């Protein structure tokens, strides 16, 4: 398959329980390119656990500034007192176009509390919200750090409350994707964690191709697994193009473009 993918689910940095081999921006970009990835949405893995995401995020945006194929993603934690200033800094000074949240690791609900204002702000400014549902298999987590996945019903509720907010859910299970996208055309999902026999056929039975995105969850996962999922699915060319890159391109095109 000679597709040019947009990978919506890539991380850069370190993770305490894994030994990522791609430790430089150049090596990560080269590896992605070798798999046919022409554009990658990359967030900082350290921003999940580090108390102030701005610090690893600033390094992320700086490190990938010379790589036009990369769209760095700003991690926001709305329970922090400075999230509004953090958002402004990222948008105005760093040129951020996408915001990611980790409600399970940062320990808040999507449907009340501080998330309400953040969601309204992003909707008003046409900034897509990426929600990382999980980064690990909950069954294999470190015994003293059990972090459940983000509840899918909260995503569906958030999508209903903010129908103009573009929501991208990453690393959701197949059944969760169906539950979150049904009736919510503003919700998109990547394919990284969807895994069953004939994954793509099952996904497309429950979710329109317009709402599916290519995502590998690299470097947590081998990029090749997501590539083969699509390559082996024998999809119609139009459907394939939507998932491979067109939907992601539409999300970015419809988002606010602020000066970098």
């Amino acid at each position, binding site marked *: 398959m000679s597709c040019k993918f947009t990978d919506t689910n890539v991380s850069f940095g370190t993770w305490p329980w*894994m*030994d*990522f*081999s791609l430790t430089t921006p150049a090596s990560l970009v080269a590896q992605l390119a070798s798999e046919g990835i022409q554009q990658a949405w990359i967030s900082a893995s350290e921003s999940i656990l580090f108390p102030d995401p701005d610090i690893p995020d600033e390094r992320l945006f700086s490190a990938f500034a010379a790589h036009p194929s990369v769209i760095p993603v700003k991690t926001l934690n709305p329970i922090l007192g400075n999230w509004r200033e953090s958002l402004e800094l990222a948008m105005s000074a760093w040129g951020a176009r996408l915001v990611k949240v980790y409600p399970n690791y940062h320990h808040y609900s999507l449907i009340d509390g501080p998330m309400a204002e953040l969601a309204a702000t992003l909707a008003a400014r046409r900034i897509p919200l990426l929600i990382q549902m999980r980064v690990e*298999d*909950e*069954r*294999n*987590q*470190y*015994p003293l750090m*059990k972090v459940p996945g983000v509840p899918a019903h909260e995503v569906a509720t958030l999508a209903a409350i903010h129908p103009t907010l573009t929501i991208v859910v990453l690393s959701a299970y197949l059944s969760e994707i169906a539950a979150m996208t049904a009736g919510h055309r503003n919700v998109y999902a990547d394919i990284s*964690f969807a*895994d*069953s*026999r*004939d*994954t793509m056929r099952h996904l497309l039975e429950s979710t329109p191709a317009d709402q599916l995105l290519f995502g590998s969850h*690299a*470097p*947590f*996962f*081998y*990029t*090749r*697994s*997501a*590539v*083969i*999922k699509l*390559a*082996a*699915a*024998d999809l119609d060319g139009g459907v394939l193009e939507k998932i491979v890159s067109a939907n992601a391109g539409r999300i970015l095109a419809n988002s606010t473009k602020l000066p970098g």
Partner: protein
Amino acid sequence: MIIDIHTHPRWEDDKFLQHPSPEQADTMLAAAARHGIHSVCLLGRFYPYPDEDGIRAINDATIGMVRRCPERVFGLAFLNPALDSDFLVGEIDRCLGAGLSGVKLEYEVNARDARLDPIMEAVSARDAFVLHHSWYKTIQKVSCESDPSDVADLATRHPRTRILMAHLTAGGMRGVLDIQKHENVSIDTSGGQPFSGLVEYAVNKLGSERVLFGSDYPIRDFASQLGRIEGAKLTDQERSRILSKNAARMLKIPIPSLRS
């Protein structure tokens, strides 16, 4: 040529078929062939804690599928070690005589339990092998479910019995270290999400001769599972061993020529 050492008969309506027909082999092979997989090894077990009648029915179904296409479909006898040992040894003889290649044990009895000993001795005497489930779980652990340290205990008690421990990702690095010194234990790559680095780690610690490709289809997609082998940093020789040669040796079938 690729041999998948860890598959199950197809599900229908999200349930294991209790009595899959021999024709299910055709369906399995067709799905596998779309991913370049030539042969599959079926692990019969369609529901937990089967009694003697259930064991016979399960194994009859597996035998039927193997006989349907003996050049490409292999199978293991499923046993519940809680049952009478004379019955279990008799069932091993019946199944191996009918063309099956070894024994599959799941979580009915923990691997440390002495009730496994007659099975292990019988398998060793017949130069077959045991494929044993294992998982380090922090949630959803089933009573009596074995982890890799339990399998290591089994290997210590039965150093001459060939053991294939299932689920590389589920045991993780700790699981690999548990079995490292037990030369009679190999590991399959089946199941779980395709977390990166583990295939290379297992090859480094165990040698590529002790790592076998498995998918856990249809619980998992052939695509995601093959992706972890195709995406791992391996030499052609290592990849060839993992994808086919080691399985051929385990199943005692002619070793395929080196994949180019």
